[in-house]
């Protein structure tokens, strides 16, 4: 593992939507090692309140040691982050976790719901680099909440958009949109990130079409190093019995088929 703890300088901080911000950091040690699906763990406070770090997925990496984060302000940690400006230093730990596994030269499906776009943009980039054909399904509540559309459009992917209110693209859930294509197209592998309910539906569809599929999960975290066992998520073992695996180092990307989607789920 190449996890490092560093002070990363803010290169740019930009508001992307009502509560969504983009942050570009200088963090060569992360860039060098980063895999799509991995995250960085960020100290969002100068005091002991709030205390814990906040995990944010790697959204993109640059050529000169930059990493890009995209996040929604949810509470005090992300609000603190939104107050940072170019030149500030931020304490980050990373890159952390098991990322997505990519084939080479195959057709793959990426299914992003809402902020689930964050790791999937980075994944799309690496998928293209590996010579894959990328079908990118991107859903959001409405048009205003479709972030990075221009960046995605500029990439050599097949982009399919859905919105819950129909303000852009397909009117309905992104998994429903995806389903339309599942009959006709065969994917070597599917990848999803988004709200838990959407991931469960994604997993169901993947199983139905007997497709290898990976999802990125979230749980509250403390250490981010696999030491505290605080970020456990419920998986199913070969015999269908529940066991718990750390999201931080055992994930955040899991095989969709291994995840326990049952009623333990929040």
């Amino acid at each position, binding site marked *: 593992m190449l996890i*490092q703890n560093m002070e990363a300088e803010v290169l740019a901080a930009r508001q992307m939507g009502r509560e969504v911000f983009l942050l570009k950091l200088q963090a060569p040690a992360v860039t060098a090692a980063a895999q799509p699906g991995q995250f960085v763990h960020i100290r969002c406070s100068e005091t002991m309140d709030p205390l814990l770090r906040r995990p944010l997925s790697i959204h993109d990496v640059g050529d000169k040691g930059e990493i890009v984060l995209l996040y929604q302000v949810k509470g005090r940690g992300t609000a603190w982050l939104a107050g940072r400006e170019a030149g500030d230093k931020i304490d980050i730990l990373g890159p952390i976790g098991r990322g997505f596994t990519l084939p080479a030269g195959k057709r793959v499906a990426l299914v992003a719901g809402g902020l689930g776009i964050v790791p999937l943009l980075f994944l799309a980039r690496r998928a293209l680099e590996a010579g894959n054909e990328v079908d990118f399904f991107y859903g959001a509540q409405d048009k205003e909440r479709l972030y990075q559309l221009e960046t995605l459009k500029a990439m050599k992917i097949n982009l399919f958009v859905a919105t819950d209110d129909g303000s852009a693209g397909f009117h309905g859930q992104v998994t429903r949109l995806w389903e339309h294509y599942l009959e006709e197209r065969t994917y070597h592998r599917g990848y999803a990130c988004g709200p838990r309910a959407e991931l469960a539906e994604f997993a169901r569809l993947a199983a139905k079409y007997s497709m290898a599929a990976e999802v990125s999960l979230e749980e*509250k975290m403390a250490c981010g190093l696999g030491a505290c*066992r605080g970020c456990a998520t419920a998986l199913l073992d070969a015999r269908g019995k529940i066991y718990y695996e750390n999201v931080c180092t055992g994930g955040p990307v899991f095989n969709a088929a291994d995840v326990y989607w049952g009623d333990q789920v929040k």
Partner: protein
Amino acid sequence: MKQTVNRSRVNLEVQLAGLTLQNPVMPASGTFGFGEEYAPLFDLNRLGAIVVKTITLQPLIGNPPPRLMETPCGVLNSIGLQNPGLEVFIREKLPYLRRFSPPLIVNIAGRTIDEYAELAERLSAAGGVAALEVNISCPNVKEGGIVFGTVPDMAARVTAAVKSQTHLPVIVKLTPNVTDITAIARAVEEAGADALSLINTVRGMAIDIKTRRPALANIVGGLSGPAIKPVALYAVWQVAQAVKIPLIGMGGIMTSRDAVEFLLAGATAVAVGTAGLVNPTAIIEIIAGLEDYLVEQGLNDIRELIGAVQI
């Protein structure tokens, strides 16, 4: 008047229950996994001792998520002692841990007194273990789930059972969730404990007001971190008056200044838990900071601080 002290001359070494610690700082059980998790970030040989997650006889899958909740200056956890069990520990974790020079302290917990005894026996035979830390903050399944560590007599019986099965120093780890922690400490001392660790986490709870459900699936959790520091420090000070065996103080130590408070209160060594979850190199910074404090204060030897609070 303060003397001028050379940093290289400062002595951080302490003796604890027959162990020699190159410095009095170690990780707190359960926050440091099995050591390997922190190895990418610093050299484990710099620690005063290595303390691993609680080991039970059988593997435990732990509690369902959510297991963590951040609270003001603290963390609630309900990991549920998730661990691979004694056998896997000995086979898969111990060989790695044996590579390091600081004494290895293995934390154990049982559901019955016999389980504690068996753990002690088998770990003592395993080789490479320097001491046992006995976690008595666990419910006694045979006696209606009363926590071993809350009843002096039960705590003493666990201690005696462990002692009878091991030649290793036995450190008993006390829970703060009692009316009189000194009564437990004295009972455990009489039963043969070589040292005490205190404190384990403080019982606590949080509720998510959106879902109206407990924030932890387990409802109750253990509170740790800076929030509990005053509680831990008082426990250490009180127990230091009550017993003669050495103490390992813990609870909310974030900086070397916090560590000094625990030493002054009477701890011979300290453990760092939650701080490491926030700042992975906190423990290394604390060791360095202790050295700086001694230099600043014109002291040559960290042992001059132990119990030196002026009442």
